[in-house]
């Protein structure tokens, strides 16, 4: 993809209070990019899910938020990164209702539905990176 990425805001995620901070920061950035109110809630909710995933499974990580541009389109890009245990079977983890017991199992699959683009790269023992974007309408 040939999208340009502007400067990033990084939010460290280690405690459950950071989940709230990450989603509020994301909402503010999305609001400044001109997203509608409904989309702001969808974006904040998706960030909340991936941030909680970091706290629950990796312990710590960070969420980088940035504006994204693709031609005339403007959007928000969220990159959630951790150096946790990684996910052995990403396809399984993305399935609705799949959980190792700490959640409802709707977090990652739900976040994917809330955003326009969603990519997850995970290596066992190395960590997980989730990149997701939504475009303003």
């Amino acid at each position: 993809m040939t999208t340009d990425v502007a400067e990033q805001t990084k939010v460290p995620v280690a405690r459950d209070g950071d989940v709230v901070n990450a989603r509020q920061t994301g909402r503010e950035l999305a609001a400044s990019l001109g997203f509608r109110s409904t989309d702001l809630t969808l974006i904040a909710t998706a960030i909340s899910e991936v941030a909680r995933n970091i706290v629950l499974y990796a312990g710590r990580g960070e969420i980088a938020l940035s504006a994204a541009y693709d031609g005339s389109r403007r959007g928000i890009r969220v990159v959630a990164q951790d150096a946790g245990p990684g996910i052995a079977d990403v396809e399984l983890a993305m399935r609705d209702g799949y959980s190792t017991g700490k959640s409802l199992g709707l977090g990652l699959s739900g976040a994917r539905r809330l955003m326009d683009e969603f990519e997850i790269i995970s290596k066992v023992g190395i960590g997980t990176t989730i990149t997701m974007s939504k475009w303003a309408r």
Partner: protein
Amino acid sequence: MLVPILKQGKVLIVSMQASMSDLDLLQLRDELADRVGRLRSSAVVIDVSGLDVMDSFATRTLRGIAHTTRLRGAETVIVGIQPEVAFAMVQLGLTLDDIGTALDLEEGLALATAPRAEACR
């Protein structure tokens, strides 16, 4: 952060705040389970109109609160889910199952104090 739990007759009223963390939610659950017994409450009304996000954890905790208080003899009614939040919950596949909901605090209180047979069903 402790959210105040108000008592009106046999009903407990809680107003959730946007800045509540997961731990705050769990603390609220424990506190409510204790209070419904101590104050002999028959219903709990939880106002979530201040929440800008109800993700899978918040939804699961609300269900947990409702089921816990029901086992303690009190029905829970969730009120004030914002339209955007409702939309996001549907996309996430989140449901409140058999928990009563109402548009706002006023309707929720009416539902909570309605005759038992009809309440919250």
